[in-house]
């Protein structure tokens, strides 16, 4: 709808950009952005305006304000990974996905906050501090949480965004941008999307280039897409997908961008409900939401069947082994020589390396590097790394079998509960939290499958709850069509934020504020 408004001249790219920037300032307390690229954003908006004036916009994305997680390289704008190691680092090149957005006229507002090097599930473990969930400040949450906590001050009540792409989720959720890029290695896009009430798409591995995304786990990382509605996600996907010679794992087949059909009939669909996703710790309200969603499909005539993915319970452990092993190897490049932080320690090159890495990485990153190196030691290799890879194959095969049996889409919860208050969240360490929070999402990464979080309802505390759809490899069109149908049925409520109201304008007032 914003795109139409831009085309029709009801709003100009510069106005839109300025409004987003001013909203961004008034929501600064969310800590969603690490860097705001005000100057370049306004320049890009001006250029876009010029194109609209000549009647030659570059496409649907032209003039649309977007944000990018701070682990994608952006030429001329700092890329920090929320780490001391890369504070002040300015990449000489754009990540392929960033370049593609810019090539289509999108306006890059800034770089969003995350857990250091995307290692975490709360967006609480970066050097720039935790991201606050916009829903903490919504009328919906305030009304419901007041009775039990009226004695405490608001400060201790705010809830986390989830992570690691919490900044991107918060940015989209608080209306400071229309779409944001996240990354998804074990659920880092879908998890914060669920907690912040936005759509979070993890595409099939190999569909979108990872060139310029600072790697966490090369075999699982994918750029993620966060938007306010499924249609928007489809548009962004269409602009990013395709082969990239700089990423050999992208598929060579041409990708045809698609417009999503509005499904009216889901009776030919077969929806699988994997029983293993009934995990310990799953809150009763999410369980009942899951059941209701299944009912919704059943009532609409779809075949809804319980299926089994028997190796699911081993997945999170294997994920941990494979993730840390790759982290150990991927982080080797940060030695203080070529770029980034370099320690003053100058006794020897080795001591400089050691001090640089001690000063540059937080405990989480150092912990993962250590465990990864342990798993890769000759004497442990067979017992951990090789075994984890074998189990990974079994997990992927579980999905293959289920899809071969005729199931089109799997329906699962995205998270175990709604977002917890920050003070609660930090009572457990990062590793424990990641193990809990990635439990329902990382299997899709292990298998490389496309998956999407769709906001479904509000919890008793007035916080968003989301459900996850997992599709067949490269069947994004089918996955998104079903997600869109579901989105339409559940009518997820819009966040009611004081700050947004103050920036009263028809663009923001529109029910979904989508751009497509």
């Amino acid at each position, binding site marked *: 709808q914003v795109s139409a408004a831009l085309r029709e001249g009801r709003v100009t790219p510069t106005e839109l950009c300025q409004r987003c920037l001013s909203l961004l300032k008034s929501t600064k307390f969310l800590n969603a952005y690490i860097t705001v690229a005000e100057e370049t954003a306004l320049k890009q908006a001006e250029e876009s305006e010029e194109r609209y004036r000549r009647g030659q916009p570059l496409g649907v994305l032209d003039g649309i304000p977007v944000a990018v997680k701070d682990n994608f390289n952006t030429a001329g704008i700092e890329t920090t990974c929320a780490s001391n190691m890369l504070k002040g680092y300015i990449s000489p090149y754009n990540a392929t996905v960033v370049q593609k957005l810019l090539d289509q006229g999108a306006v890059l507002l800034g770089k969003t906050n995350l857990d250091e090097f995307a290692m975490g599930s709360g967006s609480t473990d970066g050097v720039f501090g935790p991201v606050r969930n916009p829903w903490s400040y919504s009328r919906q949450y305030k009304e419901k949480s007041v009775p039990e906590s009226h004695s405490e001050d608001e400060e201790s009540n705010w809830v986390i965004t989830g992570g690691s792409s919490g900044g991107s989720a918060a940015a989209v959720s608080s209306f400071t941008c229309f779409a944001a890029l996240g990354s998804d290695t074990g659920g880092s896009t879908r998890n914060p999307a669920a907690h912040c009430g936005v759509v979070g798409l993890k595409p099939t591995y190999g569909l979108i280039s990872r060139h310029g995304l600072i790697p966490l786990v090369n075999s699982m990382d994918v750029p993620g897409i966060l938007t306010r509605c499924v249609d928007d996600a489809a548009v962004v996907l269409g602009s990013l997908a395709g082969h990239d010679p700089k990423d050999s794992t992208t598929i*060579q087949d041409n990708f045809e961008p698609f417009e999503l059909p509005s499904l009216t009939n889901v009776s030919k669909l077969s929806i699988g409900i994997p029983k293993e996703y009934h995990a310990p710790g799953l809150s009763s309200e999410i369980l009942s939401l899951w059941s209701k969603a299944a009912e919704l499909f059943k009532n609409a005539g779809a075949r809804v069947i319980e299926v089994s993915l028997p190796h699911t319970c081993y997945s999170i452990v294997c994920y941990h082994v494979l993730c840390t092993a790759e982290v150990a190897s991927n982080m080797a490049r940060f030695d203080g020589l*070529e770029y980034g932080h370099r320690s003053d320690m100058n006794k020897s090159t080795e001591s400089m390396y050691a001090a640089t890495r001690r000063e540059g990485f937080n405990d989480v990153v150092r912990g993962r590097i250590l465990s990864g190196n342990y798993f890769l030691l000759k004497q442990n290799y067979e017992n951990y790394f090789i075994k984890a890879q074998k189990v990974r194959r079994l997990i992927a095969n579980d999905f293959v079998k289920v899809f071969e049996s005729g199931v089109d889409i799997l329906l699962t919860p995205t998270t175990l509960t709604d977002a917890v208050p920050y003070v609660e969240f930090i009572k457990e360490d990062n590793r424990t939290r990641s193990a809990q929070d990635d439990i329902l999402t990382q299997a899709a990464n292990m298998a490389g499958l496309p998956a999407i979080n769709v906001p479904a309802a509000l919890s008793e505390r007035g916080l968003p709850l989301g459900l996850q759809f997992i599709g067949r490899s490269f069947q994004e069109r089918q996955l998104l069509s079903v997600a869109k149908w579901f989105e339409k049925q559940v009518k997820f409520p819009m966040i009611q934020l004081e700050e947004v109201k103050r920036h009263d304008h028809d663009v923001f007032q529109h029910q979904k504020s989508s751009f497509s």
Partner: protein
Amino acid sequence: MAAAARGRGGVWRRAWQRAVACNTRGGAVPAAKSGLAPWIPVVGLEIHAQISSNSKLFSGSQVQFAAPPNSLVSFFDASLPGTLPAGYQITQQRVPIAVNGSLSYSLCIDNKMSQMVTKTVRIKQIQLEQDSGKSLHDDTRSQTLVDLNRAGVGLMEVVMEPDLCCGEEAAAAVRELQLILQTLGSSQAVMAEGQLRVDANVSVHQPGELYGVRTEVKNINSLRFLAKAVDYEIQRQIEELENGGTILNETRAFDSKLGCTLPMRDKEGKQDYRFMPEPNLPPLILYDAKSLPANMNHQQVVNIDWIHERLPDLPSVKRAKLVEWYGILPEHSFTLLRSGSRVRAVAPARLLVSRNVNVPTAGDTLSSLYVMKALDVLCLENEDGLTEFFENVVKQTQMKPKRVIGWILNDLLSYLKQHSLTVKESPVSSFLLADLLNLLEKKEISSTAAKQVLAELWKGEGKTPLEIVKEKKLVLIQDQKELEQICQAVIDGRENEVIAIKAGNRKVLNKLIGLVQRETQGRSNPVLVKQLLEKKLLE
């Protein structure tokens, strides 16, 4: 190593027999001083050859020797965050590009070129890997400088089985490998420029016993030093053991100035490289005609059979052909093919694309750069040196190849060596030399005159041999009467010699022939002069 030998009973025995063969040749294996059974040295080589290519293995950066530090470094080579796959060294650890090959090489016995034996060393595997950057340590200022020009350059690591037993064998095997790589063009293989780096694993043991503890000798940058380093290390280990010492499993560096090996300080302790598979690189699949799927873009795949068909003759085959076609001596064929390290040649070896190539399991796409690098290893165009020159001369002259070879190996080669020129840089082309040899063959000039003409030709003034012959008046005196007069004049002044000849001393006749040659400034045909003199003196 020991465990492996125990498991495979035949291993040490084979090695022992080889060692005995070495011994009977004499010299190469030092005999034990104590009168115990002779020690058996075991030598295995690991060779890193820089792949001849314009760019690095996974990046577009150029490859160039002695470029200014850090001038050939892309974002990728500096492993900037987000460049894939960078930040670590990549090697084909589990599935090398070729396995179970062998290399035949020749060795002369007692340093006599005429007595050559052919030996074989098994090649365990050949794998591709990336070269590392270079650290330069400035001890006085305790600084370390890093040059990333070399980082990411494609290498092939050739791992030989421990089938060698002395420095001479090691040097001969590496020499042959060097020639093969140069013939194929898969590496320029110039040791002095670091394009061919050899590490030697050396151990000694007594007959009937398991292999001894081995040391690895690094820092060897010429064939001569390779032979020296290996022999020194063998001798050192034997002396150490005979004096009751033990050999440490360590890395040693060869010091070419001192002519000995020394322990390398920074290589102490076992390294665990903590390998893991690289997810950013899809499998490189080598197809043959049978396995090649239809509708494949030929630029995007490696077809071993296609490459096989385009292989140039490897040095051993080429040498055999030279001997057969031209009737030249085998040792001359060796000289033709190993005329100096600057002779460069190029295309893929049977060695590299052995049928035992492990074909990785299914995978789909492959970046084109990656495929091109594989092709670089497997084939390139041919560029020959001395052999080609020789063959061209033979084609353009009526002179017998057997005679031509002398001019090539004695005159041309020594001139080129003196002026350190490559065959390509020779001021005398094969065409000019053939021209000159034709004049000689048609008896228009003497061989003495031919050498004079050649000396003129080296000046590269653009004159033809015929022009020089005319200018210098080197044409043989065709007029028999004139020649007879000159002969008569020589005889007239030399009564003593005439008497001696008439008395049967034929040697003196040669002296007179020489005098006639001098008189005519080499313009007389010695055969004819001899006939004339004999006629005058003996009839």
